[in-house]
Structures are given as C-alpha cells and as structure tokens.
C-alpha cells in the first residue's frame, strides 16, 4: 500500500512538473482557461448558492434551538457568520465542487486519453499535461475562491431568512450578531482554504483522468476515485490549515 502511495505521489509530482512548464502558446492557454472559468464558475453557481443558503438557514435554526435563551439572541448571527466563513463555506463548497467539477475533469481528461486525443496532441508536439491541466488549475484558483466568498455571503443571508422573518430573532439582533466580534483574519483563513482546496480538487481529479487506462468501467472508477481522494485530501488539508492558522 505504501509503495502504491509513493508511486502515485511520484507520478503526480512528475505530472505537475510537466504541467507547470512554459506554455507552448499563451493565447491557446488563455482561451482554454476562460472556457474552464466559465464551466467551473457559472456552471457551479446554482448548486453552490442553494447549498450555501440552506447551510446558513439550518445553522441559524439549529443554533437558535440549541442555545434556548442561554446566550443573547444576537449570537445566532455571530455564530452563523463565523461558522460559514471559517469552515462551512470553504469546506462544504469544495467538497461539493470535488463531486461536480472534479468528477467532470477526471471524466473529460480520461475520455480524451481513451479516445487518443491526448496521443494526437502529443504527436503534434503539444505539452498535454500543461495544455490540459494548467488552464483548469488556474481557472479553479480564480473561480473557486469567488464561489466560496459568494457561498459565505449567501449562507449569512440564508441564516437571516430562516431566523428573522420567522420571528426567531429580530432584524436588529441578527445584524448586531453578524457585525459582532468580526475578525478579518477569518476571511483570510477562508481564502487560504479555498485556494488550497481548489488546487487539491483540480490536480487530483486531473491526475486520475490523465493516467486512466482501459475502458468505460475504468473511466467511471477514475471519476469516482477523483471525488473520493479529493474529499479525503480536502478534509485532511482543512485540519492541517486549522492547526497551522489557529495556533
């Protein structure tokens, strides 16, 4: 097992080294990056929005129920804000994106490998790792932090919708909570997580697709592996980042 892990890690490092080499032609990379930014950003907006709103709403209702008058009501806004900024927005969003975007990347690149598109590019002299992977990584590094920031904002709004119109707390209390004890450092932490998770989910998914062999069954397995491995590494990275940035 350790040998297998080392083999995959080595192969991953070699792929990334090749992916990070000088582009053949910048304009072609730019075109591909824009396409990926559209796919990742616009393509994931609705699912991210839905999840964020409900996470905020559930967090608000659940917290209101838990505290039961033990602490001031405005703490609901405060807890929803910090919970989503520090943890839920980056982690849940990226776990969802690993499923949506990551599996799609693995299937797309794996399909290209199986249909000899990658061989065709290599015969032409194209650095396929760079052309196929780098635009995806750059697009993800740009778009995923934006999605995470939007998710954090929408989660806070979701908390508001679930608690103020329903009479759990007043508008003034929620706003007071959202503004209370604000630490800009937590936003920084959210973006650090978003960048790291975006890098993990794209590179791991591209790796799974790039080295796929066999037929449809193997492609399906690679796509599943992309999600599972990305999710595990995201959760692991979440813990490591939390340790590093809070101690």
């Amino acid at each position, binding site marked *: 097992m350790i040998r297998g892990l080392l083999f995959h890690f080595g192969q991953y490092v070699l792929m990334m080294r090749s992916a990070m080499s000088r582009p053949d*032609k910048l304009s072609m990379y730019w075109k591909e990056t824009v396409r990926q930014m559209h796919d990742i950003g616009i393509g994931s907006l609705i699912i991210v929005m839905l999840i964020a709103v409900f996470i905020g709403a559930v967090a608000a209702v659940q917290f209101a129920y838990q505290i039961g008058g033990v602490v001031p009501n405005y703490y609901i806004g405060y807890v929803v804000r910090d919970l989503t900024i520090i943890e839920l927005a980056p982690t849940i969003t990226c776990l969802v994106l690993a499923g949506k975007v990551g599996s799609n990347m693995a299937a797309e690149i794996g399909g290209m490998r199986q*249909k*000899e598109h990658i*061989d065709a590019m290599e015969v*032409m*002299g194209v650095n396929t790792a760079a052309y196929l992977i780098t635009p995806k990584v750059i697009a993800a590094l740009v778009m995923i932090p934006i999605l995470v920031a939007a998710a954090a904002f929408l989660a806070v709004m979701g908390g508001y919708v679930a608690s103020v119109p329903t009479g759990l707390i007043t508008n003034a209390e929620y706003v007071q909570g959202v503004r209370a004890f604000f630490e800009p450092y937590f936003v920084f932490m959210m973006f650090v997580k978003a960048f790291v998770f975006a890098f993990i989910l794209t590179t791991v998914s591209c790796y799974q697709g790039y080295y796929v062999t066999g037929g449809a069954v193997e492609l399906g397995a690679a796509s599943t592996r992309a999600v599972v491995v990305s999710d595990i590494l995201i959760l692991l990275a979440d813990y490591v980042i939390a340790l590093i940035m809070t101690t």
Partner: protein
Amino acid sequence: MIRAKDIVKTFGDNEVLHGISIDFEASKCNLIIGRSGAGKTVLLKILAGLMPPTSGQVWYNDTDFLTLSKKEIRNIRMEVGMLFQGSALFDSMTVEENVRFPMDMFTSRTRKEKLDRVNYCLERVGLTGVNDQFPSEISGGMQKRVGIARSIVLKPKYLFCDEPNSGLDPKTSILIDELIQGITQENDITTIINTHDMNSVMQIGDHINLLHEGKLAWQGNKSEVLESKNEILSNFIFASPFLQHLRETALNS
C-alpha cells in the same frame, strides 16, 4: 526516411517486439501488417515517439530520436502527422478548429492565412462546406478525412496512420488509401501505415513489412505478395478459401 533498429519492447515479462529492424522509405507508403497481437500498434507508437522502446534506436533521417532533448523532440514532432484509428478529432471543436489546431498552437500566421490553409487541406481531402460542423455531425469516413487534413496542415515530413480503414466501407477505404498515397507522393512524405486491410496492401503497398509474433516475418511490395512462397504471409493475406482461390486463379493465368 525513418529507421527502426533492433527495437525490443517488453511489458513486464512479456516481450512483444523481439529486435525489429526496418527502413521506412520516403515518398512511399510503408505498410506494417500482421495479425492482431503481432506488435504492429506498439511498433507504430514507438516510431511515433508515443512509447519508449525497451531497447533499440529510432532514426528520423540522420537523427536518433530517442537521444533528443525535449525541445528537439518537439521540433521533430512538428514535422510529424498522425492519423488515428478513431480519428481522434477533438469533440468540442468544429472541423475547422480541429484542422487549425496545430497552426494555432505552433505558428503565428494570421487568421486569414490559417483559414486559407485549412480550406486548402479540407479541399485536398475532398471536403468542402463542413468547416462549422462538429465531428459528431459527420460520418466516420469524413472524420477520417478531417483527420488526414489535420495531420497534413503543417506540411509534415513523416505521416503515421494507425488502421486508417478500420470501420469504413470498401469504397471509402479505397478513397482514403488513394488520398494517403497521393499526399505521400506529392509532398515527399515518409508514410507508415499500420493496417489489416488487404485492399490497402494490394493497392498502396509500396513497401510491406509483415510482423509475426513480434518479429519481422517478410518484406516486399504489393507485386511480390502474390508470388511469395512465405507461408506466414500466405496464411495471413489469403486467409479465406475465397482469397486462396483467387490467388491460385491469378497465378495460373
């Protein structure tokens, strides 16, 4: 020309190529034929630089391909075109974008120059008015022709074709063969074709190499096929009773 010298390829304990040495000549259609599992595709991939051999050398004219740096390999690859069995056209691009792709990637020509070259190549393979169609919207034969157009768009010196006739009807197969032969002769290209198709062997086989169990079993040209006494060749080419009968008739007359 391309020269394969003592090519050995093993996968684990399985040696699939046992020291193949072949000279592939320029301006000719060099065919690699043989039964499934004979090692044809592996040899073609090694020659095209898509797979390293376990040992041996691949020479492109006076250059040992396997000793080149990445940059030098890239320069040579810009002189290489390849037609794949499944055409390998990029699904998300139109026919025009597919054919233009190598120019977009490696040249700084103007948009008009590229379009002129794309149209010339498409016209050369007998396709007009399909620029804006996607690969999924055209037939298999047309996809093959787009593949040929893409492979010649940068005026290659070397052309590799992996099973160019697979999945095509006999008439379209002949069309593809004639196209490859014409392009080879017009542009002085070293063309290497990996095929099972007996029509291709008898039509464009300028230089035929028969692989059998990872070894070179026979070399010759299409006119020597009929008279050859090589048993492996006869068993392969004239496999069916109908073809055996045809051969006997041809030899008797």
